[in-house]
Each structure stands twice: as structure tokens, then as C-alpha cells.
């Protein structure tokens, strides 16, 4: 187990960054997924898209230099890097739904061994809405879930989602601080584990059934 949550998040972000390939278009969800941008391998160029209508988002501006005409999907002021572009919501979702986004990385409430994901509503409690998540998960070529392995001692990786789904059978890869798991037609395959854990520990902390890859590797971070 890794109990330092900040360390756990860094491990997840670093590992996901290794999935990126030169020339790809990538969408990062709010929160932990955003950290992936900090670890892009040096020899490649990827383009990050924000669903409110821009690519090549730059850092948050200095205090006092905010331009409220340039914001991220959360409505917070950001900047744009050279080579960036602004566009309307129709183009933004053409990119997302048309299969032009190579990778979408997002957090979740639940994810399961069939690649189902639930992250937009807790009935009766919290109804933020799906925003662009259903479009992203359905439209992107590769869907990567970035998640802590457990929350309050409970596994986040389930046999079957219990909350209303965001999409069915769309998740490709689940990356936690302990493991890298791939959704396959045969089931959820454990492909890599963190150097500080064991297969048995991962199995004990996972609700989903895991197929252990015959060539199990140590997580590269």
C-alpha cells in the first residue's frame, strides 16, 4: 500500500504520461488527470485539448494579468501557448466525438472489469451532470482511467458498477498507484504492479476479478 496520497497521484500521472505518443491529441479531465501534463516525455509533442474550445493551453496567468476571455473548462483563467487555437463547441466536440482525440484521461467514481465507468451522478446526493464526459469516453480512441486504487479502504475497481453509467464497455486502461490494468475481451488483465506492492496485495485490494498477465511487469514511472 501507498498511503501518501500526493505521492500516489504523482505515480499515477507519471505512469499515464508514458502512454502518450508523438503527435497525439489528448484531453485531460479536471483534478488528477491534469497532472499528466507535467510528465510528458521530452522527445515527443502532444497537443492538449480543452472541451470549452482550445488546444495548447498554457499555464495559469500571473495574478492581475488574468484575461477572462481565455478560460479552461472550469471557467478559470488560463493562457494559450504559441501554435494554439480557439474554436467553437461544434468543432470541439467534432474532435472528441469524431475519434480525433487519441487519449482521454479521466477520474471516476467507479470503474469495473468490463470497462464500464460511472462518474457523473450519485442519485439523490450529487448531480453535477455529465458535462463532456460521456462524449469523451465514447469518442476518444483510448480511454484511460486515473484513480487511486482504494477510497476509504474500499476498492475503486469493481466487478460491476453500481452507479448510473457514463458509458458502457469504453474504458481501455486503468492506472492506479499500485497497478496498471487493461480491459480485454477476456476480462481485466493486471499488466504491471508498483515495485512497492505484491500481486497478492493488489488482488486483496481489488474488488474486480484480475487476470494476471503471464509477463507481469513492474510499473515504469
Amino acid at each position, binding site marked *: 500500500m501507498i498511503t501518501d496520497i500526493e505521492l500516489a497521484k504523482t505515480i499515477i500521472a507519471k505512469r499515464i504520461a508514458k502512454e502518450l505518443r508523438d503527435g497525439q491529441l489528448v484531453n485531460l479531465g479536471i483534478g488528477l488527470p491534469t497532472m499528466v501534463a507535467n510528465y510528458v516525455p521530452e522527445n515527443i509533442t502532444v497537443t492538449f485539448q480543452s*472541451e470549452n474550445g482550445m488546444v495548447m493551453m498554457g499555464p495559469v496567468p500571473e495574478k492581475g494579468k488574468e484575461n477572462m476571455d481565455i478560460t479552461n473548462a472550469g471557467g478559470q483563467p488560463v493562457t494559450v501557448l504559441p501554435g494554439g487555437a480557439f474554436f467553437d463547441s461544434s468543432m470541439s466536440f467534432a474532435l472528441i466525438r469524431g475519434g480525433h482525440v487519441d487519449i482521454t484521461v479521466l477520474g471516476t467514481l467507479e470503474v469495473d472489469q468490463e470497462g464500464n465507468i460511472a462518474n457523473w451522478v450519485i442519485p439523490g446526493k*450529487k448531480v453535477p451532470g455529465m458535462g463532456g464526459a460521456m462524449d469523451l469516453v465514447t469518442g476518444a480512441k483510448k480511454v484511460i482511467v486515473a484513480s487511486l486504487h482504494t477510497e476509504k479502504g474500499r476498492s475503486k475497481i469493481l466487478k460491476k458498477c453500481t452507479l448510473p453509467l457514463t458509458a458502457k464497455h469504453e474504458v481501455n486502461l486503468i492506472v492506479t498507484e499500485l497497478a496498471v490494468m487493461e480491459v480485454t475481451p477476456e476480462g481485466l488483465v493486471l499488466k504491471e504492479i508498483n515495485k512497492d506492492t505484491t500481486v497478492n496485495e493488489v488482488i486483496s485490494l481489488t474488488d474486480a476479478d484480475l487476470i494476471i498477465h503471464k509477463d507481469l511487469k513492474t510499473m515504469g514511472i
Partner: protein
Amino acid sequence: MKKVVDKNELRHLLKDGISIMFGGFMACGTPQGLVDLLLEMNVKDLTLICNDAGFPDRGIGKLIVNKQVKKLITSHIGLNPEAGKQMNEGTLEVLLVPQGTLAEQIRAEGSGIGGFLTPTGVGTSVETGKQKMTIDGKEYLLEMPMRADFAMLRGSITDTDGNIYYKGTTRNFNPLMALAADTVIVETEELVERGQIKPEDVMTLGVLVRYIVKEEKK
């Protein structure tokens, strides 16, 4: 056709029960002066179509806080707790739509498309009440176009003919909504004479716009 008007000349158009599409994404690109006009007038029973519920003090969120909205069609209400509260209390009807489907429904209306097939929402509660079609083994939902009485846009630069240029990420839903409402009103940061916007730079055609109001400096 005279398009540039004082905000107050719009009052006679804005009646209880109208439907309005509001441009903007988390208040960026939302015509705040038109929101304030509706607040001042206390127009009731509004149906609003907007990407999100904004913030309690920014974007369309103020209209929700002031209990002027009967129905909200949107993709996200997470940053305006008042919207969720009114929804749970049953005083605000909220229809949650995937953001891309919402954009496409508005575009479909504006483009004369009678409906379109999308895989977004298949296998989820978004399916409810919708026709499903399978093409080449892939499942789709048939989604319908969406129209409103008014579209309220926020332009960065607008000429007196109504041609609009949007800066930065203020563009978002604005150009789509300009094609999907009976009466299009733009609130503009800057107002210029005809011919001052390069023909390549026009993002919404003036011929679609009926009224232009100048944004008040803060």
C-alpha cells in the same frame, strides 16, 4: 434594418415563459448584461438552454438563484449548488444532456438536420425515451434538434450589421445558437462600423442577428 438598440428597448420582447439559449461556458462568453436585464425585469418561468448552470454570481446562475427559471437544459450544474438544490426540491426541472450532444442538437436545428445518430449515451440513462438504431453492428441514439425563442450571445467585436467576432474561448456555443433561435440578440464588448471586421474573421453572420446591445463597462 436598425439593429443597434439600447438594452431597455428589448424589454417588451422579454415575457414570462420564453425560452432562451445563452452562449457561454462557465460564464465565459455569456452576455452578462442581458442576464442582468432579465434579473431587473424579474421575468419568470424561463426555459434556459446553456452549457452549464454557471456560478451562483456569474453566468446564467444568477437567474437560477433568483428563481426565474422553470426548466434548464444543460450538461453540467456542478458549480452552482443552487441549481442542484432547486432540482432536488422539485422547483427547477433540469434536463441533463451530454455536452457534445447538446452542441450537436443546437447545430442540427440551425442546419436543417431533422435528427442525428450518436453513440454518446448508449448504455446509459441518456437512452431513456429515445429511438435506438444499429448500423454496421454499432448502436446509436437518434437525437433531435433543439430550438428556442431567443438566442442571447456575447460578442467581442460586432459591427453595426451584426457580424460578430469572438475572442479566446468566448466563442463556444455562441455561433451555434445564432442559427437556432427565432430572435438573436448579441451583447458586444466592442461595437464597430460595417467593414471593420475582415470577411475571413466573421464568426457569426450579421444577417442572423436582429438586435445588438453594447456591453456596459465595468
